[in-house]
Structures are given as structure tokens and as C-alpha cells.
């Protein structure tokens, strides 16, 4: 439960102090910035910047590039990284730097016009353990309790791979001495740091004097894993304020996690914090965690100041598929029939979009109960029903029958049809068993941590969706499996992975469903961009996202737009454009939000598995994306940051 501790700042004072800095809509005449990881505190991935629009986007060119130096410094260790960071642009009072973090949690500040480095901060993280390194971003806040002109009035907060919460001065990168011990708070307790077991990937949330951080927990290699406790601290002192264990004891002692690894959102005006919680451990076996496992696989609204539960919605009961809540809750104004409702849209790996009144949790689209198949594993009581919104439709089609098998030739198509005919396959939420079972979508999604982008207040949500079928199989195993030997979250491209679930009678083997040619068995596109009209509850359009020309044994000299798996998100702009990298073809693309037509694309040195951002600085609009690749893609990695702008 939430534990209130002293030193609670007065909420209204914070609101007044921070209002100029946090308002998502720039003041008249102000240049649109990008102050938060998700564009605003509600993760809309939207900028009003409209200098780059449909008429001129094809003229975009590289404005500057920057390399973090990680490739030179870390060499082979880079193969264990995924570059996921989205920079933020600090306000003028904080130095107006463009700030981002590298996979090793180095924080770098750049001149937003030239890309020249201004300062950097290296938290010197513990590299122990085998878990991959990643950092999605940092968070900024003005600290009114620090006098004007003193260090650390403008702060950046960073949660690191080795479980440290740092506060550093936004103007020079120096640690804030009054925060915790020398600028950091350790996020683990008496159990000490177990390198790689628990880490952090998303930026902490900071609002109204409260800084909140979740965690990334390895929740599949053993039955009982660390708790997924969300922690809140005083943003000035680092004093703990409250904690929230999402499982609240509901999953019994044979489980853990339900951590919050995806970005959180905050509605500062109403003092509400929104947590996207993940699955309880272990991901694919729930005998020892009977029941729904609340509040795992949920969006949870907490009181920002006390950590007390306000409302929740669980989108998967008793998860057996690793359907974590992967994406930042999107806060927006629902405008329908003259009514304006403060709303929240939650994307799920299953490809659903659930929409709520974010103050009450009341669904704005009816949620129906979908009966789902039972499990055949002894003692496993799968939920009898799972929630499904009456609208919008699921963003991918989970029905895949042998007749749908796809292949380049009759032979690989036949191979796929045979494989499909041998799978247990009753659609979404078919529990894994000792027989090979279709998992569509698999643990990759559907949507994933890239989330979606809302086109302003239009209600149009743009989402990049994975569309590759997986298979899974529970493999009985004797005791004594080594949980340290299997550490991937998802199978790397084209591979099957077997993961121990120590403490259970099974391992799980998962891989993509593909022919002997290594081509997915489901029809393309294997990655797509979907435009969802949240107000009408319909899909406005969808199009393939990505070219497979570099995915074969040799690269084709032309693009083959069949879509690729994708990680990272996109952003929408006032120029009616949607920018996204994310694909396995090194491209950053700009789409027309009205039609889905690709209007511009650029080839980067490596894949850009990060969400871009945009800002206007010095009268010029820039689009910036981090291009460093992703270890799961099994392709080249790098340490690039690219900025694009129109020619002068």
C-alpha cells in the first residue's frame, strides 16, 4: 500500500510554479518545443510545429548529426544495447539544450541548432549481469524550492540500468548534491543490487515535486521475481514519499513483478499518475499465481501525491502470454457531440485500444467480455473471459488458419500451411500447452513501447503495429534448470528461444512462425502503421511500415514494402505529418496523416529503434531521431543522433 512519508509538497503551489513550464501548448508566439519524453506529460507524441508540412517534407535534409562515442568506448558491448532514447528540448531558462541518454545512461546535452555537445554526464553504471542496456530518456523539472540563480533549480532526472535515480543540473550536468546522496538515490533495498535482474529503461516521471520511477524486471526466468514496486520521491531532496506494489499481494507468494517498465503519464492538473503495469511472473505459467493477478497487466491511476489507488483497468486477467502493458497511457481530450471529457487511451500488445474517462476510469467505449479457451496445463486456471473494447477494432487480425499460409513459392507456402495445421490455434488468448501453440500476436505485440501518436485534438491515433505470428510451447523440464542462461525478452529475429521458468515444471520455447526460407508464415505486412479514429471507433487507414529489402541473405537494390517488425514509436505534427523510424530497414519516414502515403524517407546508418521528436529553434523546425539499432534485430548497431530540417 501507499506509505505516506513526511516532506509532502503542497500540490497547488507546485501547479502554479510549474504551469509555464509544463503547459503542453506553447504560449502564443512561443516556439513549439519537446519538453517531455512523450512530447507532453500525457504522451501524445504530438507537436504543433507546422513548418515542415505535406508540401515541403520531401525537401528535408540532414541538418546535423552527432555521435555519442559509445561505439568507440564500449565496442563489443554495444551488441547488448538497444538505442531507444528520445531527446527533450530544455526551456530557455534551463539552457535550451537538447538532452538525451545513451544506452549506458550517459546524459548528453547538445546545441539544438548545431548538434554541438555542451556537456555530458556519465553515471558510471554497473555493467554487471547480462541484461541488455537501454535508456529511453530523461525528465526535466524546474525545482522552485531552489532559489533562482542557484545550481539545480533546473533539474534532469534519470533512472539507470543499475537502479540509481539521479538528479543532475540541467544546465551543466552536475549531480544535485542535495538530492539523496550526492545526487542519487539507490532504488534497491537490503537485498542489494543484483546486476541485470532489475533495471530501469524508461524515464522517470516528475511533476509537482514528486519524481516517480518504475522498473524493468526479468520476469520470465524464475517463478518468483522481485516485486515491481513503483517508488516516489521528493524531487528536491530525494526523500521517499510513497511506494506502490502493483500486485498488492493478489498474486500470492509464488509470483512477483507486475512492474512498470513502459513510460508513465501524469495529469498534473488533477493530481493523477497513470501506470502501465506488466505481467506477474513468470510470464507463461500461472499455476502458482491463481486468480486475476491484480493489478498486473493494467492501467492504474494513482494519486500523484499519496500513491493511493484511484481506479484501475486490467486488460489481461491471469496473463499467460507476456502481454505487459507496453505503452505510455495517452492523455487527451475526448471531443464528441459537443462534450469534452478528459480521456486516456491505452494501447495493448493484443492490439486493442481501450479509452477511458481518465478521472473516473469509466470506459468511453464499452468493454465487452470475450470468452476464451481454457488451459490444458494441470492446475492452470486461465481466465474464462478477457476484456475487449467494442470499438475500435483490434489493430491486427489474430485469426490465422492453414489456408492463410503465405510464402514466396508453393513450397514454402506449403511448409507454412503444414506448420499451421499442426498448431493449436483458437485465436487470441489461446493458452500455451505442451503442444506447439500459435501466439498471434506474440510477446512483441501488436503495439509495443513506441505507443501511439495523437494528431492534436483530432482523435486520430497513429500506431505502429507488429504483425508477425509467434509459436510457443511449454516443455516439461526437470528441476535444476539454470535461470541465468536465458535472458532475452523476445526471440531475436528468426530465432527460437527457450527460457527457463525456474520454480515451475516447465520451460517455454518461443519463436517466430516462419518457413524453411526464414520468411514469416503469415501474410505481409509484417509491420504496419494504423490510423485509428478514436472518436468514431474505426480504422481510418492502414499501410505497410518498412521494407524487407535488407532482411534476406543479401540486400535487394530496391525497397520491398511488405512491412517489418518494428520497435520505437512515431510522432504527429501540426504539419499533418507522422514521422517514424522503428523498422528493420534503417529508414526514417514521413507519412501523410490523411492518407497514409509515404511522403519522405531517409536512409540512416543503422536502424532507428527510438521515437523521434521535433522542435522549433531559432525559427527553424528540426526532426531528431536516435539511430543506434536494437540487439533483438540482430543487425548493425551504432551511436548516431540525426537532425533533419528544411534547407535555409
Amino acid at each position, binding site marked *: 500500500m501507499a506509505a505516506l512519508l513526511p516532506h509532502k509538497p503542497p500540490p497547488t503551489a507546485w501547479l502554479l510554479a510549474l504551469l509555464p513550464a509544463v503547459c503542453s501548448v506553447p504560449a502564443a508566439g512561443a516556439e513549439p518545443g519537446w519538453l517531455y519524453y512523450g512530447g507532453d506529460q500525457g504522451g501524445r507524441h504530438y507537436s504543433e510545429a507546422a513548418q515542415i508540412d505535406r508540401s515541403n517534407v520531401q525537401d528535408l535534409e540532414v541538418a546535423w548529426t552527432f555521435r555519442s562515442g559509445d561505439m568507440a568506448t564500449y565496442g563489443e558491448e554495444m551488441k547488448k544495447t538497444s538505442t531507444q532514447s528520445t531527446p527533450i528540448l530544455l526551456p530557455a531558462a534551463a539552457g535550451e539544450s537538447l538532452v538525451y541518454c545513451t544506452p549506458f545512461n550517459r546524459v548528453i546535452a547538445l546545441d539544438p541548432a548545431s548538434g554541438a555537445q555542451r556537456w555530458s554526464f556519465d553515471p558510471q553504471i554497473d555493467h554487471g549481469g547480462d541484461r541488455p542496456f537501454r535508456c529511453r530518456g530523461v525528465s526535466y523539472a524546474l525545482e522552485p524550492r531552489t532559489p533562482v540563480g542557484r545550481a539545480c533549480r533546473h533539474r534532469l532526472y534519470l533512472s539507470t540500468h543499475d537502479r540509481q535515480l539521479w538528479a543532475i543540473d540541467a544546465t551543466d550536468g552536475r549531480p544535485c548534491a542535495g538530492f539523496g546522496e550526492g545526487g542519487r538515490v539507490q532504488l534497491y533495498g537490503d537485498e542489494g543490487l543484483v546486476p541485470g535482474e532489475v533495471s530501469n529503461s524508461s524515464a522517470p516521471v516528475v511533476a509537482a515535486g514528486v519524481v516517480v520511477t518504475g522498473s524493468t524486471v526479468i520476469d520470465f526466468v524464475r517463478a518468483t521475481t522481485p516485486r515491481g514496486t513503483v517508488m516516489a520521491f521528493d524531487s528536491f531532496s530525494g526523500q521517499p514519499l510513497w511506494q506502490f506494489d502493483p500486485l498488492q499481494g493478489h498474486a500470492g507468494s509464488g509470483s512477483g513483478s507486475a512492474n512498470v517498465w513502459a513510460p508513465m503519464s501524469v495529469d498534473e492538473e488533477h493530481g493523477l499518475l497513470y501506470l502501465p503495469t506488466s505481467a506477474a511472473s513468470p510470464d507463461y505459467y500461472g499455476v502458482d499465481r491463481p486468480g486475476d493477478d491484480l493489478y498486473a497487466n493494467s492501467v492504474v491511476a494513482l494519486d500523484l501525491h499519496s500513491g493511493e489507488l484511484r481506479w484501475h483497468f486490467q486488460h489481461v486477467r491471469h496473463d499467460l502470454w507476456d502481454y505487459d502493458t507496453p505503452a505510455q497511457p495517452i492523455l487527451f481530450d475526448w471531443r464528441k457531440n459537443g462534450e469534452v471529457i478528459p480521456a486516456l487511451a491505452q494501447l495493448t500488445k493484443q492490439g486493442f485500444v481501450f479509452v477511458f474517462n481518465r478521472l473516473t476510469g469509466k470506459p468511453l467505449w*464499452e468493454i*465487452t*467480455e*470475450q*470468452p*476464451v*479457451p*481454457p488451459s*490444458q496445463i494441470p492446475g492452470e486456471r486461465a481466465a*474464462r473471459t478477457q476484456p*475487449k*473494447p*467494442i*470499438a*475500435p*477494432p*483490434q489493430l491486427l*487480425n489474430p*485469426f490465422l*488458419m*492453414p*489456408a*492463410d499460409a503465405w510464402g514466396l513459392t508453393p513450397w514454402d507456402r506449403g511448409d507454412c500451411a503444414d506448420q*499451421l*495445421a*499442426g*498448431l*493449436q*490455434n*483458437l485465436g487470441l488468448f*489461446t493458452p500455451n*500447452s505442451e*503442444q506447439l*501453440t*500459435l501466439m498471434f500476436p506474440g510477446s512483441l505485440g501488436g503495439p509495443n513501447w513506441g505507443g501511439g501518436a495523437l494528431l492534436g485534438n483530432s482523435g486520430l491515433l497513429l500506431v505502429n503495429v507488429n504483425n508477425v505470428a509467434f509459436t510457443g510451447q511449454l516443455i516439461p523440464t526437470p528441476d535444476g534448470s539454470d535461470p541465468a542462461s536465458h535472458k532475452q525478452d523476445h526471440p531475436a529475429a528468426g530465432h527460437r528461444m527457450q527460457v527457463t521458468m525456474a520454480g515451475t515444471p516447465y520451460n517455454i520455447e518461443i519463436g517466430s512462425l516462419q518457413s524453411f526460407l526464414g520468411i514469416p508464415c503469415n501474410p505481409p505486412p509484417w509491420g504496419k502503421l494504423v490510423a485509428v479514429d478514436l472518436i468514431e*471507433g*474505426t*480504422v481510418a487507414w492502414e499501410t505497410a511500415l518498412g521494407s524487407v529489402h535488407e532482411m534476406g541473405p543479401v540486400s535487394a537494390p530496391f525497397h520491398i514494402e511488405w512491412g517489418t517488425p518494428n520497435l520505437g514509436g512515431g510522432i504527429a505534427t501540426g504539419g499533418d505529418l507522422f514521422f517514424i523510424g522503428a523498422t528493420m530497414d534503417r529508414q526514417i519516414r514521413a507519412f501523410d496523416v490523411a492518407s497514409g502515403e509515404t511522403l519522405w524517407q531517409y536512409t540512416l546508418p543503422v536502424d532507428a529503434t527510438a521515437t523521434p521528436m521535433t522542435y522549433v529553434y531559432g525559427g527553424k523546425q528540426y526532426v531528431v531521431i536516435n539511430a543506434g539499432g536494437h540487439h533483438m534485430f540482430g543487425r548493425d548497431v551504432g551511436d548516431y543522433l540525426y537532425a533533419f530540417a528544411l534547407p535555409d
Partner: protein
Amino acid sequence: MLAYCDIRSSRDNKMRIRQGLICLLLITPLSHAATLVVKDTQGSPLPLVMVTQSPASQPAANLSDDGYTPDGVTNTSAPVLTRFTNASGEVSFPDPAEPVTYRARAQGYVDAQFPAIEGELVLQRMTPEQYIASFPSNVWLSQLDFGGDADLKKTFQLNCAFCHQQASPFMRNERTEEQWLSVIERMNSYGARLPTDDQQKIATLLREEYRRLREHPETVPEPRRWEEHLSAVEFTEWPLGDGFSQMHDFLLHPNGYVYIGDNLFDRIYELDPNTGEYTVYKVPHDEDMGLGGIMGNRFKVFPKMYNYLGVHSFAYSKKDGNIFITPSMQQALLEFDIKTKKFITHEMPAGFYPHTIRVDDKDRVWFTLALSSQVAMFDRSSGEFTIYDLPARSVKEWFILKSLPLVFSISPEHRPQPSPDREGTGLPMPYGIDITPDGMVWVARLYANDLARINPDTGEVTMIDFPFQGPRRLRSDADGNLWIVAFQDSLLVKYAPATGEFTSYPLPVINEVPYALNVDRDRGVVWVNGNQSDTILAFDIAGESWNVYPMPRQRFFSRDIEISEQDGAVYTTNSHFPTWQSEGGVPTLLRITPLAE
């Protein structure tokens, strides 16, 4: 309408004693019953609240055969009881011997779960959104008009509403046309026959019309209100099998047991309704036989399946009590020896898809052959089969029917698949069968919309046009009239062979697609399955009036009805396919009995 505890008509002393015991069991506990009063938030008593008492857990069972009861093993099913509050909002249950839980359900009120029957229970009204969402499938289905194409809607209902409900909440979810086409493709692979030419049209219409209903739910009519007669009855359910089972047809045997067939797992459940004990008999099959028998396995993507024979319909011999069973996936007839509990297989010389079965007074076994458009008669005295061909409707159909032996000589994996049309060309599908008191055999052909009469003495086959669509199952009443459900026309139809007259009776619930029926000959009542409305419908022949019985589980889909000759108790099974989509996720045998005064 129901007369219970009338033991005068019982045929022997043992039976009368058994009936007497049942009456005692029903009456005695009431003297020790606890009473609950259900009220609304204003403090007014709520009549017609459905209160269900469920065991907190089922008794431990031997389910060691891949999750199912092994052959010859006896387990026990603890019953689930449902009663309704009276005009004073009161309902009583006997004190349970084992821990139980309760659920209260009323139209327009939010379900309440509670641990004990005592004192008062207050039900909260549903919000308008919850209320509309709670409506059963049939009222939603009634508002799909398929762009005004009534024939297309009937085609849709004929081919898409015989396994499960169509407009249940999760069917109404917004889907793209591509997603609807995928649903149709999957269902056709399971055995639906939605015509190829209609698939795209229907995908478009389902997307458009479900969206219209979502945007204008106020156009959906309210379901029929529950009525006073309900407070005088009790439902008893026995859960059997699991979420992959399908308890299809069943039989009330004069020995007091109920024999229920798990169509997908080749098992017969012999259940004693007095104790809930059931013994399972697993139908043996040849070692080299594949799943799905000669039909091939249509459910390859299912995690669990054991349907080498596909036990379908049941009838017993009045001579020795042996039970005859149609194994749909075989060219054979099964006999279950009621004394030795062994199965005997009678191989057939011809015919495909043994379907519904009856035994006449001369101990001849009659059953339809649904795929080959034939009727088979097995003469027990000679051990010989006689096959009656029913006429083809066209040369093309004749050719298709005659080519079936050739088609079935090809392995299931390589067998050509038909491209169905709206008329079901090649598949007139003789379905229901019954024998009138004069010994005539009557058959309904579902896709051909006609009836066949077979004179067993002469072998003469006479075809009679059925002036409605979808004659599925039929039964004779005591006067020799035939009662037939018109599936996609939503009608109960009477055919009087003496005059050749058809009379239709609208069902008391809107847009029902009735699957089967049975006639309580002694009491003059026709009982009809109400699968889209979660009901069983009772038609009083003399008064031409209906009583409607709401089922205690949503998505309750029944295909067979049996009536106890002795006491008029009515039985049915919940055989929604797939079972896990039914509320509770497990098949049940359900009995409706009147409560003692």
C-alpha cells in the same frame, strides 16, 4: 404446465418408489430451508429474481484420461440449483450439505454474488448502458436486416447460427471486413457452409450493421420479460466434461439414468440424477482410425479433440433397453448394451453421416444419413440395414450424391472441398426424424425444405414440400401430428398428416432460430430450444399459449430436449460450441422441475 410428483403413471414398483423418493427429496428439505428476500434500492421486494446456488467446488474426480473421466470410472457432479423469487421477493433453498455460493440475477439489475441465503439482499439497477449490453443475442440479431435482403439474412442464420449465438456481446465488437472474412473462413473450415458468393457481402453488412447498432443501441428492442410461472420451478444443472467437451444429444432411459453424449470426445456419460454420480463409457475405435473418422478432422487447430466416431443421437429399444447411437464420423451404427455396458458396432453398407435416430415399436432402428440424403433402417431381428434414398432436387445434386462414395474414397487431406451455394446443392440434408403413432417414419430435410414420409411396410417414400425454411428436428404428438421447427424462419410449425395442413406459430421471443423440440405427449406441450435468447420455450397445444423459461447461463445453446414420461420434468444439455464461450465454460445437463407447494 408441468405436473410433477405424479407417480401413478409409473410402470413398475421400482420406478414408483424412485419417483416417490424424488418427491420426498424435493419437499422435505423445504421444511429446513433458509429464505432470502430480494429487494431493490427503494426497499421494494423484487419478484422473479433468478437465484442460483452453486457448489463452492466440485467433488474430487478421477480425470486422469487427458483431463477426462477414464472408461468405466464413476465420478460425481454436484448440482447447481436455480430458483426464482416469488411476488414477495422471497426465495428458499434447502440447507446445503457442502459449501455453496449464490448468484442473484434479474432483468435490469446488476448480478450479485453472495455466500449465504439469509436476510435481505438489495440489487442495484443497471445503468442504461449496462442494461442494453445485457440483452440476449436474439434481440440484437433481430435488428440486423442485411441491407433489407431477407433471404441473405436467412442464409446467414442457417449457416452461422447452429453452433453458437450470433449477436452476443463479443460478436458485436467492431471488426474490419478483413477480420470478418477471417472469421467466416475459420467457421467454414469447422463445418459452416456460408456460400462463397455471399461471404464478402456478409462481411460488409456485419461491419456496417453492428456499427449502426453500436451507435444506436436504442433501436434494439427489450427482451421478453420474465414471468410469474418461473417462481414455481427449479432448474438443476449437472456440470459434465470441460470447456472442450460438447454434450450434444442425450437420452432419458427408463432405467432412471440419463445418457449424455460428448460429441467431441467419444464418451457416454451415464448420470444418475438422484445422486449426481456418473459413469463414463468411452467408445472404442480401431487403432488405425484417424481423428474425425471417415469425415476427416475439421478441428485440427483445436488443442483437444477425441472424436473418432462423433457420438450424436440416442434412442433406446423398448425391447431390451439397449441404446442405439449414431456415430456421425463413421459408416456404422453403435449399440450400447445396457447390461454389459459394452459397445457393439454394426457396420453399414452405405450412407454418410448418421444423424438423428429413433427406434420404432417393432424394434427397428431408423436414422437419417445427413450427407448422403438417405434414411437407414436397421432391423434388429435380421441384423440387416435397409437404405432409403431420398430424391435429389436436381441432376447436379443427384450427381453429387452419387459421387460421394468416390469422394470419400479419397483421403480427407486430399478430398475436394465443396463450394457451397445458397440452396445447399448437393446437401439436402435429412436431419430430424420421428415416428408417428401409426408407425410412419417422418424426416425433415434442412436445406431442401421438405419432409419425407417412409412407409415401413411398403418402403414407399413420399416427399412433401415444407412451406417454410429450415425444417430441422421434428417430433410427433400423441395425435400423430408432426411438430417441426423452422430454423431460419423462427417458427414452430404443426403438420397434420391427416389433412396435409401446415399451421405455423410465431415464437414468443423475437428472432429465435429454433434448433430442436420435443413433445410431452401426455401433457400436450411442445418444448422448443431457444438458443439465441438463452431460453427454453414451452407451447401448450390445447391453449396455443407459450411459457418462456430463461436459462441460468448466458450463451446457453441446446440441441435436444427430453421429457420424463413419468413426471413431465424437462431435460436439455448446454452444448454451445465452443463450450468455453458459454457462461461458466463447462457443459451442463439441465432439468426443469416444478417446485413442490
